């Protein structure tokens, strides 16, 4: 048989995001002040302390002169309520007003494309996109509602990357969701996916359906071990428990102890 597909992985994926594919809405349109007001001040303070103690922080943040260069080149700024200058300003004032940072983490930051156009143009050498990446990570680690809402539609991708190191695998090109808006040509291709995939002239790709390329078991075992030891699996557990547990299950099958 020229096509390989793991039944276990397929059934796990089927149980995530069951109604096919739904959208997490436009981040940045809501300024979740209510949530911030209800938030735990101890958690808010801990987040600020963690961010400022992070080894990336001194490279990513210096001092903001409010020039707005970063916002001028920021793609989402043109379309939604999001500006990197605001992010850096709130990071700057986070020690005195941790609720400002917390409030922003609850939805606002999820608009960032992580393109790093801002880093390239900041005269103070700030890295607003880098700071956003740190804040997103913190939102996931602390299980913020906005992180849950933003990531739920993304759970299949998350699982695939964490277990195989690959994503947007051929088996995700069904003829309807999630790529309906990629048009009729794509839907046609999806109908003949197995044949098309078998005809790729690269041996490591040919016929692979549930991964982007053939990945050795020991490679996946190493990957899952790294995620466990580096605290990623535990971090994801705070936000998407079912995904983290499935990753652990996949790890156990490969011999990674829980």
């Amino acid at each position, binding site marked *: 048989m020229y096509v390989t597909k793991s039944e276990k992985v397929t059934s796990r994926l089927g149980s995530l995001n069951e109604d096919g594919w739904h*959208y*997490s809405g*436009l981040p940045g349109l809501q300024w979740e002040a209510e949530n911030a007001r209800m938030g735990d001040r101890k958690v808010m303070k801990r987040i600020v302390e963690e961010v400022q103690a992070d*080894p990336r922080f001194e*490279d990513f943040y210096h001092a903001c002169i409010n020039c707005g260069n970063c916002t001028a*080149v920021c*793609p*989402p700024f043109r*379309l939604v309520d999001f500006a990197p200058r605001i992010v850096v300003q709130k990071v700057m004032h986070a020690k005195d007003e941790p609720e400002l940072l917390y409030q922003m983490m609850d939805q606002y930051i999820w*608009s960032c*494309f*992580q*393109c*790093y156009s801002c*880093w*390239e143009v900041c*005269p103070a*050498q700030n890295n607003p996109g880098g700071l956003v*990446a740190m804040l997103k*990570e913190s939102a*996931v680690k602390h299980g913020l509602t906005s992180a849950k809402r*933003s*990531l739920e539609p*993304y759970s299949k*991708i*998350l699982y695939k*990357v964490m277990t*195989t*190191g*690959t*994503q*947007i*695998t051929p088996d*995700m090109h069904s003829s309807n969701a999630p790529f309906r*808006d*990629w*048009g009729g040509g794509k839907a046609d*291709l999806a109908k003949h996916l197995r*044949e*098309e995939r*078998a*005809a*790729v*002239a*690269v041996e490591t*790709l*040919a016929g*692979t359906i549930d991964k*982007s*390329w053939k990945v050795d078991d*020991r*490679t*996946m075992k*190493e*990957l899952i*071990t*790294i*995620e466990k*030891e*580096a605290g990623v699996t535990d971090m994801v557990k705070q936000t998407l428990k079912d995904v983290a547990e499935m990753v652990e299950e996949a790890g156990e099958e490969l011999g990674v102890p829980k």
Partner: protein
Amino acid sequence: MTESQALNLGKGDEVEMRTVDLKFLQKLSMDRKAHLAYGKVEDYLRMLEKMKELERSGEIMVHHVGDEYEPATVKTLSGREKKVPTVELWQHKSCGQCGHIPGYISALYWIMAELKIPYVDDTNQTSCTAWNYYGSGTSNPVALSAVFARNMHAAYEKNAYPLIHCGTSYGDYKEVRYLMVMSREVRDQVKAILKKIGRDLVLPEELVHYSEWLHVKRNEIAGRRKFDVSNIKAAVHAACHTYKLMAEDFTYDPTIMEGRRPAPTTSVAMALGVDVKEYSTWSDCCGFGFRHILTEREISRSFAYFRKIQPIVRETKADVLLVHDTGCVTTLDKSQVVTKAHGFPETIPVVSDAQFAALAMGAHPFKVCQLHWHLADWKGLLEKIGIDWKTAETEYKDYVQALKEGAKPVYITPPPRRLKPRAKETFS
């Protein structure tokens, strides 16, 4: 008459400048970026020095770009000379390319096989996993560094030099190499994890994106072209993560657009004789946004179409948009479907520089370049190059049918390797 050009100031404002002045202004801003206000260059060079110190003290190993990799030299934004290995490459595949734009990888392999370049396509490779970090905050620096280090060690064991296909992996690896060298805390944590999986910390002396390899091979590639592509006009989109994310280390060349833009991709098109056009939103991102292209598609698509596709088509009338990153191919190609349904007429085929170069060298448009996975119409481009796509399509369909009936598949095969693997892998 003196040639003049409009400089777009955004929001519809433009100033008319002499082209020579505009180029001077852009060059000045590049120089500033490299040497004055953007003082990260010094930090980057310090990191490279520190990497040497750590190697001398035995704390890390370094995978050098030795003579066995037949390196070529390029200049980076920092002014530093960077060694680009040209043979015995360890193909660091991209999670974004292999599942749905396989021509991105097969065209590159085909070019290498044509040029008799030995390489390793390893199944013992993960992606950088930075998709999860940038897209969703579901990774951290220690995990990313450890994933980087395990892949780099796998390449070291195979005695092949990593060549990174994806712009994001290239950017992420520059970030985490920097972090691992500069932070003892991160380094120690990574070393402890590597020990658990039976690997050592081996950092590559140079991080090299595949477009830099194509750049140094451009004249050899041009010398083997089968089609005259001098009638083709192209626009180029460079990936943010190659030249904005740790901007210091990407290739620039004063002979390619006076060094005002990154050299790779543009240089390959120029070497092939293509007329490369500039446009006002050249430096804009493609609109990918990681999670956004999947779950907040309207933002991603709107940006891709209205800030890239539409101005490119209107201003340049180019026949093709050339890119060098998997996320950019996806976004710029796929974002043309819905807009077309809404009646926006501007459309342009989107392919990687490797796919375009392979087509010019006579590669099969479907068996090798896999153009049927691309959505924006490429037929006009092929016709203008002089490729008979209808015959090629029939050949491809026959091949697919033959495979279904049990024929043996034909794979791209590199020449035999000259270097022997270093060690047996121990982790089980």
